[in-house]
């Protein structure tokens, strides 16, 4: 019962909370000790957040950032999964497009900003497009890898039971590749959340990324800068935790035997 490995229920919450408290305390005393005039203390940041909430900017900016991610990431999922499954299914097609993909993939989405501003102007579309770009490639690659990693035995069994190619794809190949695809989707979402902040610093005038840049430019409000950073971190964490829950779905849990 008292396993040394399995943490007890209260411990699961206790240690992270303790770490957060220690972190805030360290931050607080470092600010006092260094007598910095620029960097805000946790209390100042908390006041900053309250101020943003009062001016009802907080929820609006969070909402704007989340909306852009939802659109860009959503489009990447809707397009990336079919493209990835198709490329995985037809290795010949994959060999044709793979060099292009491999060349486009290492280009940081930030480098796309000038091009997308020419294409879509300054505004939401540019931000959404950048998020789409950065999420699309990891999703496609995860699908291709997932499909080509499906054991031949599963396909063979599917064919043996008389499945048509479409059925084979939907009933065997897709579920067999799904754990791998979920990993790709999670990575892509993490990247999308990084990129939305960068895009908002340049291309739009709302959202958490804009808040960071705007708070600094108009009056050097570093309490608001750090408040925005904190919100970015918390929301990013929340998105990731939400995604991790997907692994508990019973029909994919077999693919996540090890690791966190």
């Amino acid at each position, binding site marked *: 019962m008292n396993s040394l490995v399995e943490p007890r229920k209260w411990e699961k919450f206790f240690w992270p909370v303790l770490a957060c408290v220690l972190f805030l305390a360290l931050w607080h005393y470092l600010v006092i000790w260094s007598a910095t005039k620029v960097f805000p203390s946790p209390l100042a940041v908390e006041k900053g957040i309250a101020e943003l909430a009062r001016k009802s900017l907080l929820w609006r900016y969070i909402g704007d950032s989340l909306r852009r991610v939802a659109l860009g990431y959503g489009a990447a999922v809707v397009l990336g999964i079919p493209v990835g499954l198709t490329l995985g299914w037809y290795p010949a097609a994959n060999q044709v497009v793979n060099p292009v993909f491999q060349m486009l993939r290492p280009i940081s989405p930030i480098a796309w900003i000038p091009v997308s501003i020419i294409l879509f102007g300054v505004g939401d579309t540019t931000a959404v497009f950048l998020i789409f770009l950065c999420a699309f490639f990891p999703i496609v690659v995860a699908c291709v890898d997932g499909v080509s990693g499906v054991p031949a035995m599963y396909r*063979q*069994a599917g064919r*043996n*039971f*008389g499945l048509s190619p479409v059925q084979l794809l939907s009933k065997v190949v897709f*579920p067999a590749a799904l754990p791998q695809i979920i990993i790709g989707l999670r990575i892509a979402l993490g990247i999308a959340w990084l990129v939305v902040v960068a895009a908002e610093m340049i291309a739009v005038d709302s959202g958490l990324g804009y808040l960071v840049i705007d708070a600094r430019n108009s009056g050097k409000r570093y309490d608001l800068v750090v408040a925005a950073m904190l919100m970015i971190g918390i929301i990013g964490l929340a998105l990731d935790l939400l995604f991790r829950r997907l692994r508990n779905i019973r029909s994919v849990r*077999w693919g996540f*035997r090890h690791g966190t």
Partner: protein
Amino acid sequence: MSLSPSPETKLTAERIGMVFKRDGNSTNVLRDINLTVGRGEFLCVLGPSGCGKSTLLNTMAGFLSPTSGEIRIDGEAVRGPDPRRIFVFQERGVFPWLTVEGNIGFGLFKLSRAEREQRIAHYVQLVGLEGFQKAYPAELSGGMKQRLEVARALAVNPDMLFLDEPFGALDSITRLTMRRELLRIWEAEKNTIIFVTHDIDEAVQLADRVAVMSDRPATIQQIVEIDIAHPRDIGSARYLELRHGIFDQLGLAHKV
């Protein structure tokens, strides 16, 4: 060769040859294999590892085309896999994303819901997986997974089963139980079974006839008829005699 085989004949293999070509060099795996399997027969194909047993079974199941020769089932040349003949892998062939029920019902997508559920219930019971209908393969033992795969195959009412060392990954006690179960099921379902193994005892315990294969390029050295009624006494003189005969055939010593 007569064009209309006797109704007692299920499968014929005629002069099967198989050469794999890879990176310029070719491996001659099967050479001039001739075999006739009767309807409802339990045939074991026995041979050393790597001799080409799986290759032969895959040509019979339609997953590989032989380089030369022809396989006929019910008088028809085999052109590809067919749901009337199911290939059973080691237990790793079950689908981990489906429950026990989902796996057994996998090949039943053409049936009505009611019929499908009835079949699933029947085969859950036949292989003794009651109470585990909603479990996933990851929650089952090796032996249970193997029974599940057999049930998935039987559920589509195949008239032939191809089993490729199905019990090879199980512990020796489970393996014995599984053999007994397979014989029970075979007697109930009356399918034609071709069972590949490298285990002499397994072959002599299960088969009506044992086809003993030689090393590569493999031919069938000898076909041994196991004329002992089930349930077989594995201490009986006849059993030991047949077993020794196969040992000699494979060129093995009787002492360790």
